[in-house]
């Protein structure tokens, strides 16, 4: 069974990360932006998993698990904030939210 080279995984992860990054930077819909963040999380996870296999070490995989957990927590809180901002302003264009006061 021919192995896929490590470098390919890494570059794939980079491409995913960059798509997420650009998405985060150019979109103004907070929900889409959050999904872009999820993409970046996943790109990172892919790197961890690839290296775990490469080094034959479980630490990378454990880290992915923890990242998934934290990502879940992050998503929950972020979405809660989005909901609240929407309630407050009836509008969730990120560019319109530039002050920390309500």
């Amino acid at each position: 069974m021919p192995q896929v080279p490590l470098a390919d995984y890494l570059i794939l992860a980079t491409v995913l990360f960059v798509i997420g990054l650009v998405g985060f930077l150019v979109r103004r819909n907070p929900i889409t932006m959050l999904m872009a963040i999820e993409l970046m999380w996943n790109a990172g996870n892919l790197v961890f998993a690839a290296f775990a296999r490469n080094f034959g070490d479980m630490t990378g995989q454990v880290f992915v698990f923890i990242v998934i957990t934290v990502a879940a927590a992050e998503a929950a809180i972020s979405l809660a904030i989005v909901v609240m901002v929407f309630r407050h302003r009836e509008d969730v264009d990120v560019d319109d939210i530039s002050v920390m006061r309500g």
Partner: protein
Amino acid sequence: MVVLFWVCAIVLVGTAIAVVGSRQPVHSVVGLIVNFSALAVLFLTLSAEFLAMMQIIIYAGAILVLFLFVIALLTVGNQPIETGEGRLAHQTVPAIAAGVAALGLIAFGVRTAWSQSAASPPADLGTVPAFGTALLTTHVFAFEATAFVLLVAIIGVVLMAGRKEIRF
């Protein structure tokens, strides 16, 4: 194996672009589901069986459902969120430039430094028993800390969502 990787890779990139580019958040969520599933397959090719399961269950199952709920909640009036020019309209070009630059740099670095793969991994890498052993012995502190993070997140969400109005 190589074929599987490339199929997944194409799916991943395509859906990722769809997620970012779609005007409708719901379409994004759908794209994201496909994306996550393809990633789970990649995890399998990396001998990470447990992670593949977690990817499907937590991401596709829990987080994306959360997204769907919020979308459902917010788009009551059906007005699109991104109307007209944003305040940072001319940020697109630098953002893409930065992304491309990052991509190029990393790809260059990776090509230079990680051009060769290591030897074959041990046979039990990524199996559920091995994962469980690692998680609950070596990394038990991180595991506990994650639990604490989740607790904080729960409290935070309850606090924020529980009130009608919050000044922040």
